[in-house]
């Protein structure tokens, strides 16, 4: 799992690469701290290279969503692959996130 954070003006983009499973969820939660800190702004999670997400990963997405909602920012998830779309569909996450 690798998270690359880039800043483009007021928008922060976190690009995920690899598998976000239970084993590396803890590391990811530390890596995404800059995004948590910028939760009052415009945040994009680019999942083009995200191969897999476990329930622990989903939980971290939820944590970020909750923080953004609390601080008045905006969270957008982009480029989910088919498998993860399915996960999002089953778990009802489609209704919770802005997905492009």
């Amino acid at each position: 799992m690798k998270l690359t954070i880039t800043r483009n003006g007021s928008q922060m983009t976190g690009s995920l690469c690899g598998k976000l499973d239970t084993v590396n969820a803890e590391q990811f939660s530390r890596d995404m701290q800059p995004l948590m800190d910028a939760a009052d702004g415009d945040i994009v999670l680019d999942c083009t290279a995200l191969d897999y997400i476990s329930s622990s990963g989903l939980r971290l997405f939820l944590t970020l969503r909750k923080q953004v909602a609390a601080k008045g920012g905006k969270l957008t998830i982009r480029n989910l692959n088919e498998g993860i779309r399915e996960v999002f569909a089953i778990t009802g996450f489609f209704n919770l996130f802005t997905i492009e």
Partner: protein
Amino acid sequence: MKKLFQKWLFVFVSSAFFITFIISWLLHSHLARQSAEELLRANLVEVASRVRGTSRNLDTVIEISNHTALAKARAFARIVAENPGILEDKPKLHRLIKELDVDELHASDATGILTTSLAYNPDGKSLNDYNGFDMASTDQSAAFLEAITNPDFALVQEPQPNGILGRLFQYAGVARIDQPGIIQIGYHPARIEEAMKVADVNAIAATTRIGHHGTLTITPNDGSCPAEGKVFTSEINGAEGLSVAIPCEQYILTATLPQEELYLSRNAVIRILIIGNLVLFAVIFLLVSRLLQNVVITGIYSVNDKLGKIADGNLNEKVEINTTTEFVDLSYGINTTVNALKHAIENEAKRIDAELEMGRTIQTSVLPTDFPDTAKYSIAAMMNPAREVGGDFYDFFTLEDGRQVAIIADVSGKGITAALFMMNAKALIKEMVLAGSSLRKAVTLANEKLSANNQANMFLTAFFAVLAPATGTLTCVNAGHNPPLLKRADGSCEFIKVQPGIVLGITDMATYTEQTLTLHPGDYFCLYTDGVTEAMNSRDEQYSDPRLLETLRKICGSPAELLQAIRADVAAFVGEAPQSDDITMLILHYKP
């Protein structure tokens, strides 16, 4: 560190070199000056004594010579008095001039006119005739006129250059005894000339050596002797020098040594010193560097190397450097620390293991094990927890109206938190389902309660199924869980198309929908968690939905047998890879 040390070593060594150089320079300059002064003074003393000696010698020679001259003049006067005829007797006069060893014999009358004169020219052969010469006609000869009137008169004149050649010549005269007149002899004062040559200060100056290139100058003492006996710098022929001057008799003696020669020995010493010091300091620098390298740097690198290995997690690494006591102490200190750390980690690991064991106990102890097996249906379930406690659970119980409830759930996250959340959720769900008028309402209510005050953002996916044993009607509610499998009595298998539903615990606004399907006798209804389909092998491949479907299609038997077969296939697929998630399954068999 080595570079730093070498830098400072270099600074110190070069400072020492520089200071040594300065001190030597000053010391040797001083010594050179001092020895030059001594040399100059010694030379001056010697020259002064020579000047005095020759000067005295000259005086003595002049005195003796003058006495002799007077004696000869008196002898000539006595001979003339006793034998006046000799003045006319040329041969006798010639003999007499030879016997008296003089060059000229003169005798005048009472008027001062020379009546007899015999004078050899400087060649000693030809004669010069002064007969009739008036002694009063020149200042030099007039000095003898007093002899005519004073019988006691005697005069020896200073030697004077005579004639064209400037030959030194001297006259001596006395009064005539036989009659008033002058008796005079003239001669060349060879001894005096010789003594004067010896006493010539210019000759002394030319023959005196001061060191190699030093000079001695002798100048008339005009009362302005510069810094008598003191050293002063001077300039001779454009070269700077060191001089000492002293007055001596009527002269000033000045001895001068050129700077170049003065500092010749100092420069030689300094050159040798520089070369010697450079070699010495280079050796010291190299030796100390080398020593530092061997004793300290190598040790430190070795310690760093070991510490790097220890930091990489190899706590069995030992530091053993025995070069110096300090390193032995350091090694001992590091080893002790690492050992203590190792023990602490082991203890912590034991504590964590104990905690994990407790979590696992919590998780497994709440799972029902009295699997129902009635005439219409039977249920089997299993849960294999991963090493780290997860939050999967299954549950089954019967409602008051005899319907059978089966639930499977997967709590997000790991650890004690997940286990406690799971316990709470399981109890809450059971309570709601038992009390609720409908399954949909029970799930909605359970979600509301779980969502309230959920600080940890925990959530769970769950699938609820309620079987009416008499009709085979299965009422289902899905809360974000994996779609169940249905294995029909004819052997066909399929994933049930479930209604999507939001996972439990995130939002209290979620609503759920019920769906019903009908089980026919001999059908198997199979619930599982993603621990099954997403079980990973060492090549990072997932067990996957299709494989689960295929496995289920191939096997038959009691629910317990199906569970075992699927579990065995998953285990075979995963191989050596560690189990990362709980593996939980529940199979309901609607008996034929």
